Each structure stands twice: as C-alpha cells, then as structure tokens.
C-alpha cells in the first residue's frame, strides 16, 4: 500500500497541497483528475521527496518514505515518469536506462525484461535521448522507471502530445504492470483515456481532495466528472 496521508507541500512560501490524502493498493490503477494547476504534478514531486513536506506523511508498506532523503525514495520501490518526460537529454538511451538500473543495482535480466515491453528502444540504445521521436521518448521515460523494478509507478500525463498508436502502447504497458501487481498512480487529462484503465478516480482541486470514486460508477454516470472538471 502506498499511502499519502494528509500532506501539505508547496514551493517556498506558496502552499499548493493542503491535507491531501491518497491510497494506492498493489495491482490497482488510481487516476488523479483535476484542472490545470490543481496540484497533480506537485503531488508526484512531493511523493518523490523533491519538495519538502510541511505536514503529513508518505508511507510505502508502512515505511515512512517522506523521511528518507530524496535519492532514497526510488530505491524504496517507486518509479517516476514525470510530466514532459525529463530524460537525461544528452545521454544515450542505454545510459538513461543504466541510471534506472543503478537504483537497485539490477542486473541485465531486468533490462532484458524492460526491453521486451519496448522493443523499439533496443534498436536505439546508442542514440542520444534528445534525438528520439516524442513517442520513443515517452517509451524511454517509462522504461527508465521500470528499470527501478518499482512496486508503485507514478505517471504524469504520459500521453501528452502523442499519436494514438503510441497512446495505446503506453496504455498497454500500464495495464501489464497493473496485472503484475504494481500499483499505479496515473495523472491524465483525457477523461476517455482515464476511464479505459482506471480502477478508481480521485478528484482534486486547489491541492485538496474532492472525492474518490470507483471508475465503474463513473463509466455509468458522467455527471460527477462534469461537476468536478466542468467539461
């Protein structure tokens, strides 16, 4: 269980998250929905220890990971796929993946397993990350996070600006990881994309929880979405 327990966080003196709570179980996809600026990206940064918490805790299977130094969070079992991909642009595909593998000093069999999910990366191992197409960059960002052998995955708008075929490829990998027992926190703008994979949906606004509902209920009744997102 990944538990975000009433966290407060922000940038300098500007508080963004206010008592935000989320729980993600193994083998579950929790989608985070909220308007632009609601604090979705900030939530992920806070989980990764990249922003100091001014209140609350983040726990992973009981271990308080919000008290670890930031560079130890990944090793506790969290793979992060940030908004805008944030690859190490001047490094090669192989080097980007090596940095992911180093987190747990994983061997070549882990890399092999990841490349089976993303065969296109295998042909591009020596290429610099910045020379990849947008879809390939997203694959690399996802593959880099999977090299951590995560128990929980954080995906921040992974389909932003991608072609439909790529979106489908990413969706399938997310589902595969879920079926392998990985817990997934997914931020996604497109409601149809959310509804096609989510188990539960958490709505947030101004860094606060609104409500969290089962995705099945949303599929039956769209009015909640309209109420919270105004679409």
């Amino acid at each position, binding site marked *: 269980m990944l538990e975000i327990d009433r966290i407060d966080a922000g940038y300098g003196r500007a508080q963004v998250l206010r008592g935000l709570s989320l729980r993600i179980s193994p083998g579950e996809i929790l989608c985070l929905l909220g308007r632009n600026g609601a604090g979705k990206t900030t939530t992920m940064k806070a989980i990764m*220890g990249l922003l100091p918490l001014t209140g609350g805790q983040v726990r992973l299977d009981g271990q308080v990971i919000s008290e670890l130094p*930031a*560079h130890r969070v*990944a090793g506790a079992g969290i793979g992060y796929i*940030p908004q805008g991909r*944030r690859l*190490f642009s*001047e490094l090669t595909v192989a080097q980007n993946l090596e*940095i992911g593998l180093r987190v747990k000093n994983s061997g070549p069999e882990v890399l092999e397993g990841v490349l089976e999910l993303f065969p296109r990366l295998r042909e591009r191992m020596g290429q610099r990350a910045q020379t990849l197409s947008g879809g390939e960059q997203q694959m690399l960002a996802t593959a880099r996070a999977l090299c951590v052998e995560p128990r929980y995955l954080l995906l921040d708008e992974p389909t932003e600006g991608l072609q439909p075929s790529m979106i489908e490829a990413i969706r399938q990998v997310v589902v595969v990881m879920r079926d392998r027992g990985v817990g997934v926190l997914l931020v996604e703008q497109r409601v149809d994309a959310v509804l096609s994979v989510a188990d539960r949906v958490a709505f947030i606004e101004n860094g606060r929880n609104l409500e969290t509902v089962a995705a099945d209920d949303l599929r039956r009744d769209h009015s909640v979405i309209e109420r919270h997102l105004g679409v």
Partner: protein
Amino acid sequence: MDFGPYLLLASLEGAVTAAVLALTAVGLSLVFGVMRVVNVAHGEFFMLGAVLAWWVAHLVGDAHPAVGFLLALVVAPLLVGGIAVLADVTVLKRVNYDPERTIVATIGILYILQQVTLMTYGPDARPVEPPFNTRLALPFVEWGENGLQLYWPWGLSTTSYKLAVIGAAVVVLLGVWGLMARTRIGLLMRATQLDRDMALAFGIPVERVYAMVFGIGAGLAALAAVLIVPIQQAHYLMGGDPLLLSFIVVIIGGLGSLPGTVLAAVLIGLSDGIISVFFSPTLAKILATLLVALVLVFRPQGLFGVRRA
C-alpha cells in the same frame, strides 16, 4: 631576433599560459556546469596549490628537487580537494546551493583562505625548484643558398620543463574527459548536470556528487598551480589573475561546456602570451575582457557553447 622566431617564442610562452589556464578553467567550468555554483574562491584554491607545493618541497628539503616536486604534484591537489569538499559540506550545502548566496559564501571562503595563508605562510613570494630544467635551443627556417634550411636564432629557446607543463596539462585534460565520458561516476555527474531533480528521483546521491565535483574542481586548480609554481613562485595574492582569466575563458567557451572551455583557454592563453610579448600584459587583459563583453552581448551562449532550449 626576426619577427618569425619572435612569434614562435611568444606562442610557446602563450602555450604554457594556455595549458595552466585550461586546467584551472576546466575546474571552474565543471563546478558551474554540474552545481550551478559560481565559485569566486576558485583562484584561492589555485593559490593554495602553489603554497602547499612550496611547503611540501620545503619539508622534503635537500633531496633531488624532483622528489619534492613530484610529491607536491600528488599531495597539493589532494589536500586542496579535501579542503574544498569540507567547504562544500559545511558552507555551500547549508545555503542550499542557492545561486546568489553561494556567490557571497565563496567570497567569504576566498578571504578566509587568503588571510589564513598570509598569517601562516607570510607575504613573501617563494620559488619551487623545477624537477628538471634543461635549456633547449629551437631551430627556425630561412631561405638560404640551398632553399629552405634550418638555423638556430640567438635567443630562441625554451626549457624542457615548460614543454613538460604543456604535456602534463594535455594528459590531465584527457583524463578529465575520460572521467566524464567513460566512467560510472562521470555518468552520474553528467546526469546531475542535465537534470538535478530527475537525478534525485533516480537514486543519484546529488549531494555527494556535488561534494566530489567541488573537490575535483579545486584539485584541478591546485594541480595547475603546482605545475606553474616553478616558473612563477608562490604568493598569497597570486589567485586573482587565474580567477579573472578562468571566468573569461568559461564565459567565452560557453558556460559549463568542457570542450568549449579548453578551446577558449587555448585562444586566450595564446593571445595573452603573444600580446604580452609584443605589446604589454595589461593590453592582453584589456583585450580579453573586451572580448568577454562582446561575447556576452552578441553570443551569450559562448563562442563554442550551444544555446539551451
């Protein structure tokens, strides 16, 4: 002496300046590139390298000068690197590597190092004996009765030590390149430079990388100083010029770009040597500073840098 041989002599002097400058500036550039820290104390790490080289050579005493010098070549950069790591952990880390506060902090470190050196080592300039120093007469070409022929113009000479300084700098720079491009720690340093937060999110102990980079940067300055101290003497105020020239080189070369820094060091070092010989050292500094102003106005990413997206 004719113009040709004179120019060769000036270029050789310039090449020695360029070699030492390249080492010093690469240290500054590394620190700025990876840590985004403008290290105003960099010149004092250079000065400490020279002063420690004198101490080591002095302690070794009567043995062959090569013994003291070689020992200094190892001990001074290590000690200075250690002092820099200490400064990083106790000062820079505490101000969170904030760009403005690190400038003020390194100014403080500058004065502490300078004044402690003045109180312990004193105000004198002291020489270190070079490990070897054979005078080498150099040939030049002229048109004679039988076409092109070599001759040895009077006064055209250098020393084996000066050539060794150039060679040593080339070797160390290749070593730095190898460290960055070919080793695991180099990979971590480059990843940290490219995206600090993602480095953290992927388990890289950024604070330890920073401490190491600050130590390596200072160690390179110290190494450069050990190489130059048999030619220049150690003095507690000798850090100013290398700091100014390193800044000039790092800006012209493109902030944080190591190949650009080396190219710019060669350009500035050679022109400094040549202009100093033919005109005056002051004119050389004026022109270099003017070039920086022009670069900042017309090409802020540096002559050899790439514009960042």
